[in-house]
């Protein structure tokens, strides 16, 4: 009985949850209890890191000045914070076990943020804790984290949407807004497609810098591999390498990335090439062909729908449609390397398949119309049958009465 009581007592008095810092033995919490809730949620608490590991002092003491004695750091300044985090995070021997990189501080030194902070001691620049928080340091794959993909734009925007702060450096403040509406932003935020880049995808995280003119095409090509390669072998790629063209940004936006619609191709060329020049007429030709191929593909799709509605099996046609679609998607490459011969070939492929599919649909449509011709014999025999029966009936009735 007493053993059971003892067990119940132990169970009731056992610490609840996973509180790492216990105020009964840990002196810091005597005064700083308010920091505990924030810290306990983080990955540092999970790994058994405690206040004094970063802030120094004596956790065994419960009163000042003893508690703040020894190697006490207190709240470190921005520059000191970088060094403080680096004591662990720049040490490969400590980071290896967690599968973490150890180059963040070195990278940070190369970033605009790092140069401002560490070289010019400009306190406008962020330090580690501005993006990662000082106490609630969550894993990047924790949806509450400030560096979770969905939250990155907001985190960067905390400074980069601040007009008065950015005015000092001549930087615009509409990037986040543009990003949210861009193809990348829509893919990430609306469709939850985590393959889409956030700010970090193009600028880097700790080594954040805007890509230079000659770097832009390389940055985009990391994801857009096939168009990137095509761009590189075309005339625009040459210009970009020579620093005469801002890479992909010549035609596309940076923060407001969007496709150039087929109907806007020639208009985009006008940005650099005057109408009437050979380059501009090439763009016009490209626009015509892409628009035509796009219409051909749409027509094929609706022809397949029509075939299905007539009750036809459309497996073969769908297979051919996929072939046409593959050719159509390859036109994207041609738009970037401007190889007109290949363009001819691909659009011809789309056109020919579309023609076949539409012809099949037309035949089915005609057959459906021909079904109506059956109405002629049906009604002829019905009316003939009824009239003959009527006459026969009359004759019989007359005979029966007579």
């Amino acid at each position, binding site marked *: 009985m007493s053993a059971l009581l003892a067990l119940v007592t132990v169970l009731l008095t056992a610490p609840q949850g996973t509180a790492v810092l216990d105020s009964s033995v840990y002196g810091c919490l005597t005064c700083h209890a308010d920091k505990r809730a924030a810290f306990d949620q983080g990955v540092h608490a999970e790994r058994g890191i405690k206040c004094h590991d970063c802030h120094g002092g004596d956790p065994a003491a419960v009163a000042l000045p003893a508690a703040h004695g020894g190697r006490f750091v207190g709240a470190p300044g921005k520059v000191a914070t970088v060094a403080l985090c680096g004591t662990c995070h720049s040490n490969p021997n400590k980071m290896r076990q967690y599968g973490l990189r150890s180059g963040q501080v070195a990278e940070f030194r190369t970033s605009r943020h790092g140069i401002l902070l560490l070289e010019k001691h400009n306190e406008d620049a962020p330090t580690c804790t501005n993006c990662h928080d000082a106490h609630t340091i969550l894993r990047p794959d924790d949806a509450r984290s400030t560096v979770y993909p969905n939250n990155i734009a907001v985190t960067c925007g905390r400074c980069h949407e601040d007009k008065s702060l950015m005015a000092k450096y001549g930087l615009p403040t509409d990037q986040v807004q543009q990003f949210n509406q861009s193809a990348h932003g*829509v893919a990430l935020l*609306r*469709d*939850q497609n985590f393959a889409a880049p956030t700010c970090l995808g193009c600028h880097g995280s700790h080594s954040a810098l805007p890509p230079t003119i000659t770097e832009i095409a390389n940055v985009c090509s990391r994801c857009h591999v096939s168009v990137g390669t095509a761009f590189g072998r075309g005339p625009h790629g040459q210009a970009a390498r020579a620093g005469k063209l801002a890479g992909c940004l010549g035609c596309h936006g940076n923060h407001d990335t969007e*496709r150039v*619609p*087929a109907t806007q191709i020639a208009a985009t060329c006008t940005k650099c090439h005057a109408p009437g020049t050979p380059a501009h007429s090439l763009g016009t030709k490209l626009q015509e062909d*892409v628009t035509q191929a*796009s219409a051909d*593909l*749409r027509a*094929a*799709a609706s022809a397949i729908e029509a075939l*299905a*509605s*007539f*009750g*036809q*099996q459309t497996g073969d046609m769908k297979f051919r449609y996929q072939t*046409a*679609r593959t050719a*159509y*998607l390859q*036109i*994207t490459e041609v*738009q970037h390397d401007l190889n007109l011969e290949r363009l001819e070939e691909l659009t011809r492929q789309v056109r020919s398949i579309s023609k076949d599919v539409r012809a099949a649909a037309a035949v*089915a449509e005609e057959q459906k119309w021909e*079904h*109506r011709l*059956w*109405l002629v014999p*049906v*009604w002829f*025999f*019905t009316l003939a*049958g*009824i009239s003959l*029966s*009527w006459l*026969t*009936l009359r004759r*019989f*009735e007359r005979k*029966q009465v007579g």
Partner: protein
Amino acid sequence: MSMGRIWRDITQWLAQVGSDIKASTDAGLLGVARFFGFLYGPIDTSLPIDEALQKSLRFRLPPHAGWRHALGGIAYLLFLLLVVTGVLLAVYFRPSAQEAFPSIQHIVSGVTLGWLIRDLHVWGASILVLAVLAHMGQVFFAGAYKPPRETNWLIGILLLFLVISFGATGYLLAWDQSAYWTVTESLNALADLPIVGGMAAGLLRGDPIVSGATLSRFFAAHVILLPWLALGFLGFHFTMVRRHGVAPLRQPQANPGPGRQFFPNHLLRSFMVGMLVLAVVTTLAILAPRPVGDAAHPGELPDAILSTWVVVDVSRALVHYLGRWGFGLFTLLGLGLALLPLVDRGPEREIRRRPVAAAIGVIFFLGFLGFWMAGRGLRTVPTAPPPAVEQPATVPGGKP
């Protein structure tokens, strides 16, 4: 050997076969044809089969039997049309979740006249319901359900339920999105009925969702169970018609006359009506074929559900305009109409002196027609919740 000789030999031989059959077959065999409604007059089994047939054909119908009494026959003709087209469809239809839809595509586009057979079956099913209801209305307003014919009224109600069961089970066999989701919604509604609903829906479905198991059950019911039940009850229905005769006129005529001879007068008149009905059904089948939608997909809600059967039209219009309770009340009204003969047993058959019965009848039949018209144009969407994340609109092929 000349052609004339061959012809004479063949006719002689046929005559021999004919007389063999006559000599060795009882006239009672004609009773089978009579049971299934093809002969009206009594069979004199003491006569040889050919003379018994001739005697039966000379039978005279009551003098007041007119065109309005053709409605029952029209319903029977449509039933036979459905049997014939149904058997033809069964030759190519494959009752499995994988093959049902492709086999219908094949019937409609690959089989000679398959499209016509299929749409005759579809339209026949709708017109049959209307013909049965018209027949029922005629009997109702004429007061022909009153004793001694109340048993036959109840058998008629049973046959109406069989017709609806035929349609309900056949509806799923198309196995396209509209069929699949209509049946899913109907079974979900059935499952909401208190006490027995869940069990009945589970029994019909045979699976947590409408699946190949459901398709097999519906197919078995549609082509094995229901046809036999219907044939049996039809035979009994006709037997009762002969037993009690056509209901007499409300005011007996002074000089009713000898009545119409079954052959050839009645048969010719039936033939004319039958030709007209078949031509109308064929015209509808040709001009308004049932669309072949997308194959059934349990994981994908269609944009809109199409209705292709009069009962579904009416049910959807009822639920859409009056809600579930309206649907329930209308069904109760129909049931009240069906069971009225059990209480309304007085001899009065003049419709003006039967205000309650007349009111119920008029409301039901006009309501049915009205909701049918309203339901035909209705394009409903499934009531299941829409997908949480809206998919981006895609142009076929996307933009390069």
